[in-house]
């Protein structure tokens, strides 16, 4: 932001200073219903200044609708949206000062690259020379120096994406909104662009609200992730937090692979742990969801495949099960096994070699995991 500070018509020094601790976007209890059905149902979050926040969820979870409401293309049924401290609920998109990048890039086909990037400055009445300087400068920042006079259709998908980013950044928006921006790119280019967007984010210090259904993308790029399902945010937190401390089977399954084992909750013990009993009658110890008193009658333990150990004779864990090896797939860095235990499949990941030899299908083994790796989850309908 500071690189353009002196050219900005909207950012006064006072405001820039106030912003460092301010929230760039605040979404308060926003609902959107279409003919009775709630597409977005009481969504509540704020984007801290300089933060990279991702709305992650399957299609139909309301993530894009939420972004469109922030951008001003959809009107919330209720709730409030504030940008840089100011309620924008009645502002049209062109007065919200947010940079938006769409999956289709949406570059103006009849304008050259530099004209595309100048467009938001033209709309803001910036003088011609100033405009050109800023456009060329930002094109340089996204790695497209020298592409000024090309037409969008002469660029590759990745290059078009960069132009779209440059165009959304050049007018110093209060935040950048990205709606599945990498969805149309192939896998390699997508990974490259992930790194570049992330680098651009830290270099320019701009706040980013990102929408995707791709959990890897969300994990790689985000400071915080809001997992959405059925129009609600089911959990909001740092990627590692969500991965290790999911609050529901949905989150546990949506972020990475996990094993969900049915159990009953016996009694809570010290340090936020609870005794559980698996369906084969064996007892175990699992972590309870923080600040979340269990009110359900059905429970599951979620344990990540890489946290399940195959136990040698004499080894013990807080949770132990007898299992049979069904299938093994070698994946280079590790091997993935499908075991049979508790009448269901149990997936485990094992680094083979020093830690243990390959297991042949049909072998009976004892597997176990510690209480810290077992997350006790209440089974709610659907989630």
């Amino acid at each position, binding site marked *: 932001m500071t690189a353009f500070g002196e050219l900005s018509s909207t950012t006064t020094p006072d405001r820039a200073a106030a912003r460092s601790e301010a929230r760039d976007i605040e979404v308060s209890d926003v609902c959107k219903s279409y003919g009775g059905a709630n597409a977005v149902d009481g969504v509540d979050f704020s984007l801290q200044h300089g933060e990279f926040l991702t709305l992650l969820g399957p299609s139909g979870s309301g993530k894009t609708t939420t972004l469109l409401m922030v951008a001003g293309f959809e009107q919330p049924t209720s709730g409030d949206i504030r940008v840089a401290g100011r309620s924008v609920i009645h502002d049209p998109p062109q007065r919200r000062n*947010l940079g*938006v990048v*769409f999956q*289709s890039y*949406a570059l103006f*086909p009849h304008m050259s690259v530099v004209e595309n990037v100048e467009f938001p400055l033209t709309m803001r009445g910036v003088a011609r020379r100033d405009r050109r300087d800023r456009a060329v400068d930002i094109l340089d920042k996204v790695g497209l120096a020298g592409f000024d006079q090309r037409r969008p*259709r002469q660029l*590759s998908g990745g290059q078009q994406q960069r132009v779209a980013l440059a165009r959304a950044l050049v007018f110093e928006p209060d935040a950048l*909104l990205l709606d599945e921006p990498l969805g149309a790119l192939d896998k390699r280019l997508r990974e490259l662009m992930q790194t570049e967007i992330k680098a651009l984010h830290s270099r320019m210090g701009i706040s980013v609200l990102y929408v995707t259904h791709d959990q890897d993308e969300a994990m790689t790029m985000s400071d915080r992730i809001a997992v959405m399902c059925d129009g609600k945010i089911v959990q909001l937190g740092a990627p590692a937090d969500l991965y290790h401390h999911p609050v529901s089977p949905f989150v546990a399954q949506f972020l990475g692979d996990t094993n969900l084992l049915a159990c009953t909750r016996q009694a809570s013990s010290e340090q936020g742990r609870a005794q559980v009993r698996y369906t084969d009658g064996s007892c175990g110890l699992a972590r309870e969801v923080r600040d979340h008193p269990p009110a359900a009658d059905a429970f599951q333990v979620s344990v990540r495949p890489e946290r399940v150990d195959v136990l040698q004779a004499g080894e013990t864990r807080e949770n132990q099960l007898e299992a049979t090896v069904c299938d093994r797939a070698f994946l280079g860095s590790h091997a993935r096994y499908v075991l049979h235990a508790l009448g269901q499949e149990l997936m485990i990941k094992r680094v083979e070699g020093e830690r243990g030899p390959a297991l042949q299908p049909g072998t009976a083994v004892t597997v176990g995991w510690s209480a810290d790796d077992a997350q006790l989850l209440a089974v709610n309908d659907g989630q």
Partner: protein
Amino acid sequence: MALGEATLASTAAPTRGQRGKRSRSFVLTLVCSPIFVFLALPTAVVIPMAFTPRRYLEFPPSGLSGHSFANLAKDEAWTSAALTSVKVAAIAVLIGLVMGASAAIALHGAKFRGKGLVVGVIVAPIVAPLIVLGLADYQFFARFQLVGTVLAIGLAHSVIATPYAYLTVEASLAGLDPALVRSARSLGAGHLAVLRHVYLPAIRPGLLAGAAFAFAVSFDEAVIALFLQGPGATTLPVKMFTDIQYELSPKIAAVSSMLVGVATLVLLVQVLVLLRRRGSGATATTVGTP
């Protein structure tokens, strides 16, 4: 009208038939050639008739002469009729384009109950019987004492020109990414700026095609023009119609062949625009959708 519909069909399906098999295209040629001859022959007959050296219509012509064209140019009744036709067409094109294009833009991407009905009403003048339209126009303009004016005929023609402008502009909007509009707005563009920077460039070919159609439709429309004609407002087709009842002079054939010439010219411009657009448009779509 036949000309209008033929080109309209080709606008609607610009990509079809680019990669047909050779044998298929041969059969297609075999079947279509006689149809084209059947469609074009009656029009083509008029052209040699115009070059007759006699003072009456004959076919085949007994010689070659341009005197009917020369007579035509000297006859003030005909030149003023031609001028009237151009003025009428200008009004029809202008109003038709503004109405058709704004309807197409307003309805683009809009979803609401009864949209089909709205589109139906816009397109209705294409199928409405001209005689009914003519009668209605006559009664309407008679109330304002506008019958017999160029303005009345122009306004009446703009009604039948609007659907063509709507359809061509709508066709050119079909490929417009709705995200372009959103993107422009998020970048700070108000409604007018969106119209200028997003819609206008996209519909330019459609506007051109629509103008060509609207012009062609108005220029050879006779029924409504006949109802609304007056001493100062006689269009070319009306003049031809009334003239043919008194004398069968080769002038009629000369005017007819000139009309064919104008129509062909409009058609050629259309095809050229279409080819140019297809050339650039194809590249845009391949890159746009990976």
